[in-house]
């Protein structure tokens, strides 16, 4: 479903070139639950951003469903992010001016889904993650764990095939973290491909396959 070919990303820091990714070749199959583990600065988040079409590589390519993402324009990349992917961030990244149900409905809004349909589905998704009684709360009125569950509901709003989590448990306590990983496992059982980046081996243990990264390289 997803594979990378000699994926390389170089950041410039003053005169120095920093290799965030070096010739990464990785294949992720449909329906897989993969955890990418590594210390901070290992390049795991950069890899995730490339796979999630948030960032463009310096060289090499990312293929999604055999389409080279380098050949797509900005709007086509936005469409992939909107229709095929669901993002969960360490910082939750909810829009703080909107309440829970509006946040969840936001990707559907950009997809052009009708207002009633959108709000109804957003409400269902919130009920599914156990926040049925919090749908009109603003992010500032929710705990970290609750915010992350809103973010998961939002990631699912356009029914994506791939769910991407960048340290999804990084800002919550262990119990909440485990609960979140349980939700992700459930999503995997529904047939979705789950890609999670973490530095926590315990969290990575929820995944079917684990890949370790160091200095921009994927280790075997």
């Amino acid at each position, binding site marked *: 479903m997803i594979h990378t070919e000699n994926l390389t990303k170089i950041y410039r820091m003053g005169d120095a070139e920093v290799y965030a990714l070096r010739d990464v070749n990785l294949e992720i199959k449909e329906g897989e639950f993969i955890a990418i583990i590594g210390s901070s600065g290992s390049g795991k988040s950069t890899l995730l951003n490339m796979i999630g079409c948030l960032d463009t590589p310096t060289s090499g390519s990312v293929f999604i469903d055999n389409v080279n993402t380098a050949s797509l324009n*900005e709007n086509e990349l936005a469409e992939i992010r909107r229709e095929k992917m669901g993002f969960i961030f360490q910082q939750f*990244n909810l829009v703080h*001016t909107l309440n829970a149900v509006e946040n969840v409905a936001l990707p559907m809004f*950009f997809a052009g889904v009708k207002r009633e349909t959108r709000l109804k589905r957003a409400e269902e998704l919130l009920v599914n993650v156990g926040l049925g009684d919090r749908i009109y709360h603003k992010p500032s009125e929710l705990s970290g764990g609750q915010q992350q569950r809103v973010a998961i509901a939002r990631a699912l709003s356009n029914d994506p095939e791939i769910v991407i989590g960048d340290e999804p448990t990084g800002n919550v306590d262990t119990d909440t973290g485990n609960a979140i990983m349980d939700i992700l496992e459930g999503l995997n059982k529904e047939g979705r491909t789950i890609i999670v980046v973490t530095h926590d081996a315990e969290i990575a243990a929820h995944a079917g396959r684990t890949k370790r990264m160091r200095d921009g390289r994927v280790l075997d």
Partner: protein
Amino acid sequence: MRDKFLLAYRSIKERRTRSILTVLGIAVGIAAIVSLMSVGYGMEEAITGELTGMADMISVMPGKIAGHAYVELGSFTDRDVKDVQRISGIKDITAMTYDAVEVEYRNERAPIFILGGDTKELGSFYVDPVGIKEGRWLRENDYKGCVIGDRVANDFFDEVIHVNDKLEINGAKFVVVGVFEKASTMYAADVDPHIFLTLRASQEVLQTDEVKYIMVRIYDIEEAEEIAEEIEEAINDNHGLDDFANAMTMGSMIEQIGDVFNIIRGVLVGIAAIALVVASIGIMNTMLMSVMERTHEIGVMKAIGAKSSDVLSLFLLESGMVSLVGGVVGCVVGVIVAKVISFGASAALGIEMTAVVKPEVLLGGMAVAMVVGVLSGFYPARKASRMSPVEAVRYE
């Protein structure tokens, strides 16, 4: 679309104080335009309205208008007056003589303009529209009597002049038989600072029989321009000059005043435009700050699938809404300010003036507000839309 409005509204509300300040910035600019334009139109209407009441008059002067200044080239003769009288379509004609002379009142001296003419004809031009406050108008045989304007009576000398007071005009003694009311705007320059004498008295005092000014009243306003041309031709022939006489119809005066007001309005709008430029910089600043603050939010929106055009339209909508509200507030405030100014001006200057609020000025004000809002919102909006999602998400 409704949801985009809602989203834009939310983020305006989120930054309430700043949004209100931005709205005020625009509103001040628009209010300045609307009020200045409305007051300008009001002034124009007050003046041309009075002129229209005098549309049957033609004033003839021995001189030409060069640029915006009047240059006197000499004076008319009795023959000129007789020739003008012969032109068909003329109802009344008054030949006037005037000049500045020294006037003494209770040992105080001042140079004042003397205006002399046929008392009946002069009276028909000035007495009805201005009115006599004290005493009466001149009679044919009032060789030693005079009627004075409001400023002569009240302003020119330390002591106020009343009926039966004595003046010494160029050494000759005169008795004041009447005092004019304070004249309205149109007549103020003609009546207030002048002393009116019979033709004979004025010719004696000024030691001349020159005619400096001919006023003509005609039957048919439609013929005004034609008659004015005939008058000019007749007098120019007498003097053998091309551009000697200048016959002005009220129509052409209204036109000239219109020109003057266009210039005044241009200046006023120019001033208001500066206010608008400041306001638009204000919007741009607000929106740029908003974009910087929301780098993260923009990144999140893009990460969850917003296209660049979605972000662009959201931000444009935001600045558009702010400036629309600013435009509405500005129009309302502008109308109120215009009313207050014209009320104040009427009371202070003693003229009838009401602000004229033209719908096209209001519509124009709104349009300007929207254009300013969208244009100054465009740069920040484009900046926002071009943000890379990963840069934005990383930003904290």
